[in-house]
């Protein structure tokens, strides 16, 4: 190698960025501290947020506002299918059967050898 080649060889090529090496050769062991920090931060923060929401929610219920269950009950009651039949006059005809339906039991022309109940002796 002559002097010119030696001089050129002394020029140091620019290195790639350190991020590239990290991207290529990131091992699970090197990621562990980052993950530990992330989990160590995320888990308590999530727990705090959940606790805060639950406290705020229970505070609303105590102060007299509708609890989350009440609107659901109202909705269910508004649906016709879930309505409980009320004993008013409109239902009377369907619940009180007329005596005509049972007339065949009072006929004398029965083929049975056992007589029907007499009308005057119910009990």
């Amino acid at each position: 190698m002559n002097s010119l080649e030696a001089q050129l060889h002394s020029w140091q090529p620019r290195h790639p960025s350190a991020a590239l090496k990290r991207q290529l050769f990131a091992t699970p062991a090197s990621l562990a501290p980052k993950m530990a920090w992330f989990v160590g931060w995320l888990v308590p923060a999530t727990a705090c947020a959940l606790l805060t929401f639950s406290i705020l929610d229970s505070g609303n219920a105590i102060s007299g506002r509708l609890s989350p269950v009440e609107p659901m009950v109202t909705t269910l009651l508004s649906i016709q299918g879930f309505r409980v039949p009320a004993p008013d006059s409109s239902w009377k005809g369907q619940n009180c059967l007329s005596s005509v339906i049972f007339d065949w039991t009072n006929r004398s022309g029965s083929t049975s050898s056992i007589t029907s109940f007499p009308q005057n002796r119910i009990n």
Partner: protein
Amino acid sequence: MAFDWCLRLYEIKAAELILYGRALGLSHGEAEDVLQETFLALMQKPQVPLKPEHYCVRSFRNRALNYRRSLWRRLTRELEARRWFEKSPSEGPAERAAMNALAALPMEQREVIVLKIWHRCTFEEIAGLLDISPNTAAGRYRYGLQKIKLQLEGVVYERDELTGGTVALLAAAPPVGGA
């Protein structure tokens, strides 16, 4: 383990491959992208290649030549610093000019120079890689090196863009004394 030999290879070759990428016309960022692709592919290999360094250079070259260059990439390449080498405290103006001269060489010449000097390839290996004869490789090397030498010695050369890249060598005029 694939991971270990790739890491060792990366430590040895990364900067040289970046320089080779520059010689092939890529920006520093583009050369990094191709370097990443090359090593990702290498890490997928189940076995260590017979000559890892040469395999790596060949793989890098193929990927660099196939690298799709968008308009945005071209623009960023133009905006990016042209520096190919690390800054050295002993770097003088002549050396800086020589570095720029290397960057200004035709791609065929600077590619051979980079492979010969920084990758320590023989002319036979370069010929095999570029699919040319060893004599052609040697000729490109000598011609390119001569231009850099002239630059280092304070000779200014101008490149005539209009005549297809022919180079005219103009001796620097001696300073006029007492003027």
